[in-house]
């Protein structure tokens, strides 16, 4: 067990608007964490900063001990909240690109998943339904053997059956020592797969606890706790 991610006093503003306000937390290896909060609370900004896409000039975040940069990006696998592949690209094409960019990309594992979920390498992204495209994105993201997975709204606009598939892909692929952070509005769907929950409100971290503790102490589900907090 080691610390995969350490975040100390992370803040970020878009111009005058403060998106993240002094966020601090630690994430151990082998943990799955869910980040919950209303739209605009700063979840996506936080994820993007952990992914190294937004510049963190105070080095508030370290991943595996290193400040966020090209090195951490090599061990972090990020999936954005929308399907970000161009419609005219073939799946095989995208996989070739992943192979070039990421040493830890396991093409065979990806192929197996594509097979299992009825996706054909020769298909173009534009031909896929929304659910299939989302599955594709998760498959490719999880086929990297990364230390930290960041999934931003993996279930957005996805039907429950596809969501089950995505959860299955996640649980099957995640290496033992790796950690995963996901953001979602589908709290009840992920409650049983996460170790810890974080609530973000107006850019501030207002809760960070193991889910089982919350059930133990309060006798209520995560969904109930969320509704109480954010109603």
């Amino acid at each position, binding site marked *: 067990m080691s610390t995969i991610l350490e975040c100390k006093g992370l803040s970020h503003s878009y*111009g*005058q608007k403060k998106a993240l306000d002094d966020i601090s937390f630690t994430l151990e290896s082998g943990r799955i964490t869910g980040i919950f909060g209303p739209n605009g609370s700063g979840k996506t900004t936080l994820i993007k900063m952990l992914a*190294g896409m937004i*510049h963190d*000039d105070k080095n508030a975040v370290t991943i595996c001990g290193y400040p966020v940069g*090209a*090195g951490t990006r090599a061990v972090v696998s990020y999936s954005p909240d929308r399907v*970000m592949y*161009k419609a005219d690209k073939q799946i095989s094409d995208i996989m070739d690109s992943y192979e070039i*960019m990421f040493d830890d990309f396991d093409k065979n594992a990806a192929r197996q998943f594509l097979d299992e979920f009825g996706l054909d390498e020769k298909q173009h992204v534009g031909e896929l339904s929304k659910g299939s495209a989302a599955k594709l994105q998760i498959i490719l993201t999880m086929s990297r053997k990364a230390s930290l997975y960041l999934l931003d709204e993996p279930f957005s606009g996805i039907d429950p059956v596809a969501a089950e598939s995505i959860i299955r892909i996640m649980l099957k692929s995640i290496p033992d020592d790796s950690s995963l952070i996901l953001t979602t509005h589908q709290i009840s769907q992920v409650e049983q797969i996460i170790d810890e929950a974080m609530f973000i409100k107006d850019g501030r971290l207002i809760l960070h606890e193991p889910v089982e503790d919350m059930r133990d102490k309060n006798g209520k589900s995560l969904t109930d706790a969320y509704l109480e907090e954010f109603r």
Partner: protein
Amino acid sequence: MNRLDRLEIKETKKIMLLLITLVAAYNLLAVLCSVLSNISASDAPFIMKVILMMISALGVVCAAVIMIARFYGILFTDEGLMRFSYPVEKNAHLKTNVKCGLMWLFAMITIIVAGLVISDAVTKREVEDWGAGNLYRNLAEHYAGNYLSAPSAKALLTVIICLIALAVFVINIYISFIFTLTMSSRICGKYNILQKKGVIFITGIVMFNIHLITVEVMSRIGAAFYANYDWLDLFERDGVFVELIDRSLANIIVYGITAIVMYRISKTILDKKLDI
């Protein structure tokens, strides 16, 4: 060649090789027209040749537009922004785009220059005597006519330095576009402006005007300096040689330094200040 370069080439290979093929084809046809113009009495082949060369030059413009548009995509579209999650430094995207962009551009420019030289060499008509392709030959003759020592070597030197000046100029233009995009991105990020295309447009106009002024200033200074060749008699007996070399060197220095400055600034912006 690093990963990002390989990816960039893989993604641009198809369209660029197509453009290169077209440029080469048009140049080939232009050479054929030159040959034809030797045989035919009419001016048509010659006119055809000029048109073909102009169309092939469009290929270079297309390639530049495509590569610059790719950079726009990286900075301003969501799909492009994803590239910043790659395991490379942020400024690597700048480096790769400039490297690959210039590579494709110069591949095409080389073909066009070769086309010019070959077609002019092949033509026997008077009208081609001072064509760009004949620059070397004409300079050599001119220098020899003015009793310069080693006229062929000096002609070669002149041509080489002129070509380098042209190359530096092309590099400067390309980097100017890239610089415009990074500057616009920085401005939009810092002042939280949502009208990104507006900012790009305005920055572009500013850059364009700076360029016009620079070209004009350089041109006038050069012209004034070399308006009178008399004082050159002290050094060499040919004003054209000195002028071409000096002005080319001046261009190389001015455009070269500004290109480097624009590149360094873009690099810094990407590394530190770019907010997504």
